[in-house]
Every structure is written in C-alpha cells, then in structure tokens.
C-alpha cells in the first residue's frame, strides 16, 4: 500500500466504507479494553468495588527499581531481553544454515516444508507439554538420556537447566519460521547467478556473501523483528514447562502480568504494567512497520 504505487492510487474517501467493518470490530476488541486498562491504571481500591484516584502512583512505583513492584518489573524485563537475545543468536544462524541446505526442487522440497512447518502449528501449551514431558528424567527421552550420561539435569530445580529447556524449546518451536522465510528469499535467486559464480570459480563462502546473503537480508530483517516481538510476549510455553520457576528464574513480563492481574486481581498494578509493556511493543512494532514500508519502496523502485 506504500511507495511509488501510492502516487498512482486514486484518492477516494469512500474507501472508508470498505474499511469500516474491520475498524469497528478491532476497535471493539482493542479500544474498549484498553480504556478499562487506562482507567484502572490511575486508580486504587480496597475491594468492594470502591475505587479512588491514584494518579500516576502506580507508574511511579513500577518504574522505581527500589519498590517491590518496580524491582519485579525490572527483573522480568531483563529476563525478557536476555531470552530474546539468546534465541535470536541461535535461531537466526541455525535458520540460515538449514535454509541453505534445503533441496531446490522435487518432492523433497514439499516434504521438507511440511515437516519444518509442523512445530509452528502445534498449540502453544501442547508445545509446553511436549517439552515438559520430554525433559523429565523419569519418562522423557531427553531428561532420561542426560541423566543416563551422568549430567545433573532437572528443569524444576535447576536455574540453568530451566533456561536451557525453554531456550531449546523455543529453538525447536520457531527456528523453522526463520528457515521458511530465508528459503523463500533464496528461491528468488535466478539459476544464472549460480552458473556465473561457478564459471568464476567462486568459493561456497563467496557465493553466500555475494549472492545469497544480499538476497535474504530483507527477509532476515522481517524474521528478526517477528521473532523478537513474539519472544518478547512469550507466555504459554514457559508457563507450562516451568511455571516461571525455579523461584522467579523464568518469570517473564507476560507471566508476571497474568499473575498480578488474574491471580492477585491487583488491577492498578496490572494495568500500569500493561500500559508500559504495550508501549515497548508498540515502539518495536513501529520499527517493524517502517522497515516493511521502506523495504517495499526500495523494491518497487528497483522494479520500475
């Protein structure tokens, strides 16, 4: 919808009638609830549905690392960033490597695509369940093997083991997304490029740097942003496996938020946390949007 093509598009405000149904249903689902959240975030209650004005008190507490709530928030935020960083550092190179090793034609392509996509289609709590079982030393293959090798592995009590489990789970769950995106980018490279490279006697690495990497850089940006956003919002999978433990070692913002909101019904705190959390996501989302439209513009210019 952007770029040079915009200039050719007719300006017509009656198009709003076609957008209106979408606008109404999303507004009903998004704006109304967010208004409640904003409302709660500036009030406090002693129960019995009586509320009084608390101004920006909750926000002050939330952003003050010395308070109980603020400390929790900063810790969870740090864990979120660490988690996102680690999974990106593993999933992006691994995804590229697997995409490069995909077959280029035949039935093998279809079969690989279907097998790769399978983890992406599993309900998130089932993903959690699969890994919860898989990692147990009594009934799970992974835990049993590791214990059999004499490694002390128990994700319920060990912080390191818990982190390794959820990172391995996320790599298992989402690396295929990176693979599929990169593969789509690689497929767009004409065979003539490879033939030319072969005639020049280019090495495998040279082909990757000069031909393949530039072609997938665009989809890689999309992959990084999508993975960052989704991993930043992660809730179900670690919740099922570790429940946020041991202690608070794997309590991410989402998990903490649900605990405060639906567990303790601490509405003011939860609402203030929701708003700050949402603002972070919104900022990343804006980067994503800008990159998307920028890339599309650049592409159209090349085509024209």
């Amino acid at each position, binding site marked *: *919808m952007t770029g040079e*093509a915009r200039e050719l*598009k*007719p*300006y017509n*405000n009656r198009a*709003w009638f076609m957008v209106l*149904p*979408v606008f109404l*249903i*999303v507004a*009903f*689902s*998004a704006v*109304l*609830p*967010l208004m*409640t*959240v904003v409302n709660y975030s500036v009030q406090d209650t002693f129960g019995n549905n009586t509320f009084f004005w608390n101004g920006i008190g909750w926000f002050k507490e939330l952003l003050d690392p010395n308070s109980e709530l603020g400390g929790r928030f900063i810790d969870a935020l740090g864990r979120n960033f660490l988690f996102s960083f680690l999974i990106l550092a593993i999933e992006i190179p691994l995804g590229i490597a*697997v995409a*490069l*090793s995909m077959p280029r034609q035949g039935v093998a392509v*279809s079969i690989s*695509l279907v*097998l790769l*996509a399978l983890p992406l*289609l*599993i*309900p*998130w*709590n089932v993903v959690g*369940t*699969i890994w919860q*079982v*898989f990692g147990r030393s009594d*009934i*799970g*293959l992974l835990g049993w093997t590791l214990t059999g090798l004499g490694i002390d592995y128990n994700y319920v009590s060990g912080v390191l083991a818990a982190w390794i489990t959820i990172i391995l789970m996320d790599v*298992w769950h989402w690396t295929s997304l990176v693979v*599929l995106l990169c593969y*789509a980018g690689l497929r767009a490279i004409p065979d003539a490029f490879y033939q030319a490279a072969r005639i020049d006697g280019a090495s495998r690495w040279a082909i990757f740097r000069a031909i393949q990497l530039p072609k997938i850089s665009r*989809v890689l940006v*999309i992959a990084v942003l*999508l993975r960052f956003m989704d991993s*930043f919002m992660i*809730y179900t999978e670690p919740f099922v496996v570790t429940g946020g433990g041991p202690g608070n070692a794997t309590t991410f913002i*989402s*998990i903490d*938020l*649900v605990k405060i909101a*639906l567990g303790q019904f601490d*509405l003011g705190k*939860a609402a203030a946390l*929701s708003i700050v*959390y*949402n603002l972070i*996501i*919104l900022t*990343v*989302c804006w980067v994503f949007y800008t990159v998307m439209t920028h890339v599309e513009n650049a592409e159209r210019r090349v085509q024209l």
Partner: protein
Amino acid sequence: MKSSRIVLLVYIVFLMLPIYWLVNMSLKTNSEITGPLTLWPTQITFQNYVKIFTDSSWYMGYVNAVLYVLINTVISVVLALPAAYAFSRYRFVGDKHLFFWLLSNRMAPAAVFALPFFNLYQAVGLFDTVWAVALAHCLFNVPLAVWILEGFISGVPREIDETASIDGYSFPRFFGRIFIPLIANGIGVAAFFCFMFSWVELLLARTLTATNAKPISAIMTRTVSAAGMDWGLLAAAGVLTIIPGAVVIWFVRNYIAKGFALGRV
C-alpha cells in the same frame, strides 16, 4: 552438496523426536510410561484415544475449539476482504495510520488483554460461550487477514479492475465473479493463518471460558488428578491437537513464509 543435506536431516530429526515421543507415549499404558523407559510401546493400546472420543467432557473440548476457530476464521476473512481491497487500491484519510494501528493489534500481547476481555465479555453476557473466544481472537486475526490479503491483492494489476469496469461490470459483480477467483490463493492462505493462530492460542481462550465452552487445550490440564498424572491421556489429547494443522499444511506449503511474514515476502 551431500554434507549440506546432513544439516537439514539432523535438524528434521531434532524436530521430530519430541513429537515422536508424544505419539509414543499416547500409545502406551500408564504403567508402561511410569515403568522403565521404553523407546517404543511394547504393547500398543488405543485406550487413551478411545477415552477421549467417548467421554463428552473430553471430545466437547475439540468441538468447542473447532467451533470458535471456524467462527473466527469466517468473520476475519469476510471482513478483511473489502478492507484489504481498499488499502491496496485507494488512498484515503488516515490510511497509513489505520494500517499501522491494525498491525499494532496483531502484535499486542494477549496477557495485556486477558483481564479487560474477561470484564468486557462478562458485561455483555457472552462469557463462557464460543462467541466470546471467537470475537476476542478477532483482535489479532482480523489485522492479520487484512495484511495478508493486502499483500496478495497488491500482486494483482490494477488494470484488471479498470478493464472490468469498462466492460460494464458493476463493482459487486466484478468483485464476486472476477476478483475473488483471482485471489483465491490469498484467501486460502489468510483463512489458514487465521485458523492456525486461533487454534494455537490458549491464554485468551482459557480466560474467557469456564465450563461450557472450554477448548481442548485448556481441558488438557485436567489430567492432573488425585491419582497422579494421567500421562497417556495427556499425550493422546496433545497428539489430537496437532492433527488439524498437519492435515491442512500440505495445501499451503508454498505460502507458509508469505503468511508468517504478513503477506510481505
């Protein structure tokens, strides 16, 4: 060439192992699961599956999940079609902002919406119905469908619209007879992704249902009982939630990347 295939092979084995383990467990009896570890079922039992298909408190979970997923998919795609067309073909007041606002809802964390949705759907009397979950999932699926369809529609040259209008087609006739068949692939992909994202979501589905409309993914937690964990049953229920995705994935295999990238690849 050969060595690079090994990377793919090892990766696929890594993907399949945990799934195999789940299938393996679902075919065992509980005494075999908790006994010494066996790599495959020594005596295959289908008892776990029989239990799910005969106990209404179990299979209703699938019925509920399928119901709200289907309702949600239909609403999302039907509403998104004209909007995606408008975004692709026209400029209008606030179009860019609206498009971004839609995206921001696709990316919004479900945890933020859990409590307000709980209040909202209780207030309008839809709590614990499949409609509550179907409508709640519109929050991210309608924007998703708009973005995916817009990507596909922008691939159709505008000359086709103009030619049809010169040939005397009215807009609704053009849209139904010519345009929809042209983007049939896109509609299929959008529907698949709406189906999928609604199917895999748990937090909202669990928060908005209590007893009558509970989806299977939330019922699964019930296997923890006084008598200990019913692992076989849990595994069988898990396997059955994988099947719908596995069945339809074949038809959209060439568009998976495009769908995940919101129609932008």
